[in-house]
């Protein structure tokens, strides 16, 4: 196909898509319209039935909890896959050599950068815990908060290198945390069956909307997800860094 005819097909397709998207956007009900059926169907029931003021969390961790369970295990399996692909059996024994390679990093942060980066670790952890813990009250929840928590060790690696990173991140401990988070979600679902209801039924006390103890299992599942996501990200980071640094050592 010649370039001109290819571009003709491309622009014809693009213009058609642009026209359709514009038409769709003009007929969009808008976030506050009563025509928005999803909003009507989710916001009021999440407060009335579950005492949860963040409708998205109520949908994710309660109304369609089984889908979220599946999503969480997508992440779990992906992390396991990355760990299997990148495993470095002798890397632990070559720990000292890895530290030596680490000392010769291409770019070392200045003390001002280092101070600034280390200074953000505390607020990052606090903000991550807040986002996980307040999933039922305000935007956020386990997934988002978990990734925010995982950026804390990341920034420590950038500031101080792999040696310090490995001192605060114990691989076995993070592995156990990831498995525990994933298992906690499964077990919280079983609570519903133990109470004689369906799997993942919200059987914990619901509390009062807009207070820290509201939501029942929504909050518990948010914490389980937060731990699993955070540990998963840290594990992938650990495996990648070990892989890259071991390769660097082998190349030298």
């Amino acid at each position, binding site marked *: 196909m010649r370039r001109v005819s290819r571009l003709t097909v491309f622009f014809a397709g693009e213009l058609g898509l642009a026209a359709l998207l514009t038409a769709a956007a003009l007929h969009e009900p808008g976030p506050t319209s009563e025509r928005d059926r999803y909003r009507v169907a989710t916001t009021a029931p999440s407060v009335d039935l579950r005492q949860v003021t963040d409708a*998205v*969390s109520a949908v994710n961790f309660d109304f369609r909890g089984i889908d979220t369970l599946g999503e969480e295990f997508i992440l779990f399996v992906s992390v396991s896959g990355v760990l299997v692909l990148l495993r470095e059996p002798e890397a632990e024994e070559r720990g000292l050599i890895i530290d030596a390679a680490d000392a010769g990093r291409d770019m070392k942060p200045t003390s001002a950068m280092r101070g600034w980066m280390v200074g953000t670790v505390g607020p990052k952890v606090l903000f991550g815990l807040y*986002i996980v813990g307040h999933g039922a009250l305000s*935007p*956020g929840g386990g997934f*988002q908060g978990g990734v925010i928590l995982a950026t804390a060790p990341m920034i420590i690696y950038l500031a101080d290198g792999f040696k310090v990173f490995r001192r605060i991140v114990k691989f076995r401990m993070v592995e156990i945390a990831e498995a525990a988070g994933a298992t906690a979600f499964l077990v919280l679902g079983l609570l519903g069956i133990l109470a004689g209801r369906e799997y993942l039924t919200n059987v914990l006390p619901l509390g009062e909307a807009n207070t820290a103890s509201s939501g029942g299992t929504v909050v518990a599942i948010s914490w389980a997800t937060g731990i699993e996501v955070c540990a998963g990200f840290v594990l992938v980071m650990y495996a*990648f860094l070990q892989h890259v640094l071991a*390769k660097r050592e082998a190349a030298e």
Partner: protein
Amino acid sequence: MELLQITMLAMAALFGTALVFAREPASQAVGISFYGLVLALMFFVFQAPDVALSQVVIGAVGLPLMVMLTLAGLKRRRE
């Protein structure tokens, strides 16, 4: 639609186009991080703060991190 929403849509289109023209994988990774932030702001002005948060953590942190780490791994292998 409000002016802010139209501005964010235009910015998303602009950054998306700019990203397509970046050919170097490392600059693409940095570019997609900024594009992730623009998308997050766009979701925010369209009153979807939950989606905006997910977009920030995945689009601006998770995805570029994975791309950069993979690039570093590939670079070491080539050496």
